[in-house]
């Protein structure tokens, strides 16, 4: 009637989902780094701006105003370019994060639905019904097996236990 390790399978699935949720942000940042190919360009621009600023600080504005002004214009131009680059990178990162989250939640929902579908009529484990009186029918939902622990009850219990263990 009940698979021997169904309870362990459900517990493992819930644990895995919660673990994945913890590492979602790391995963999305890794993916965005892989997708973005011009990350070096940004660091080059930063280095260039830094070099120009150092050069500008060594120039006297009174003595070489024209050179100073040219350098200032270059710095401003490169800074604007860098800002645009950073803005587009941030937007892309947000998009990747959003996609990763959506995919994760769809996968999690699919996993839960498949578990419920599989164990709809089979309890994950069976105990003597007098042990879990008077709520044996509620615990056994939706299997209807006396003394059985239904998939919904077990999913709720596992979710709660994993949440508590995360807090501790």
């Amino acid at each position, binding site marked *: 009637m009940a698979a021997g390790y169904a309870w362990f399978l459900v517990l493992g699935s819930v644990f895995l989902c919660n673990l994945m949720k913890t590492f979602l942000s790391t995963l999305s940042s890794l993916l965005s780094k892989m997708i973005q190919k011009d990350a070096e360009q940004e660091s080059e621009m930063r280095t260039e701006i830094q070099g120009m600023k150092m050069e500008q600080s060594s120039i006297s504005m009174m003595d070489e105003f024209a050179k100073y002004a040219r350098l200032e214009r270059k710095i401003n131009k490169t800074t604007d370019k860098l800002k645009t680059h950073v803005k587009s990178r941030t937007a892309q990162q947000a998009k990747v994060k959003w996609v990763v989250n959506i995919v994760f939640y769809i996968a999690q929902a699919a996993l839960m639905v498949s578990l419920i579908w599989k164990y709809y009529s089979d309890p994950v484990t069976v*105990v003597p019904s007098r042990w879990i009186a008077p709520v044996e029918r509620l615990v056994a939902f939706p299997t209807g097996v006396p003394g059985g622990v239904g998939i919904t009850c077990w999913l709720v219990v596992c979710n709660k*236990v994993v949440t508590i263990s995360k807090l501790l």
Partner: protein
Amino acid sequence: MDTGGDTSEEATGSSTMSAAQRRAEMRRRKLLLNSEDRLNRIVGFAKNGSDNNGTKAQPNRCRAQRVDIIMSRRASRRPAEPRFHLDLDRTEPWSPSSSSQRPSPFLPESSALSSLSHTATPERRGSPLPDCSEPPPAVEDDVGALRQRLKGERAPSDNISGSPRRGLQNYLSRFDDAMKLRGQLASEKPTQDGGVETEEFDPFRVFRLVGSILLAVFVRMFVCKYLSIFAPFLTLELAYMGLSKYFPKVEKKTKTTVLTAALLLSGIPAEVINRSMDTYRRMGDVFSDLCLYFFTFVLCHELLLLCGSETP
């Protein structure tokens, strides 16, 4: 004759002044009649304000008095700039009934009266209460004490409805509440977006969880053959209720969420919301204990079956 004409003018002037003085004196007497009652209410509500927030014994005039207190104090410093004080924890709409009965310090009549009669001056200058023997309370203490007191008040005698001033004050106070709640929500959103909320370490909570685990193991080993597993659990929860007072209480910060903000703006008192949230939190604790207990029980059962040491 001139002296006769002057005498008649003086008589008219003195009769006008005395009529104005008479009116001022009548108002002052009327206020003095209720001064003791008002003072008792203030002092009484300052003591009982934290305990009896839900009582509706006090009239709505005190709200208007508080407005007058603040306005008169600030008028002494900046008479050209009236100020309104808005109560975040207010639950009832403002009633300007008694404030409308009292003359505003900014009206020319009252200023003329104050310049003319010395008896009216203390009322307008520094002391909001007509009884000058008592020192006027600090504004901030008034605000803090009266805030607690004015929740759920309704004066049976205040039946003024449709007053545009009350509607405007009501609108302003609601708007102020909404702005403050919006600010609180905005400040709490970054902490919630950060992921799992870090809760303060609660030793009682850890004690409950460990107790549930140990009881589940004990029940699986020795008790489950004889009675239902939920009976020991209920006994344990009753024991926890009694033991909770022996553990240090951890102050849980009440978070402003969209739900609590909506409930506050709909007029539900903050105390009711806090009590409901507290009850909900306690139910959540019991549910957590139950889930952990049942999980441990099933785990022990499966491990014992795996070991083959016992058949159910």
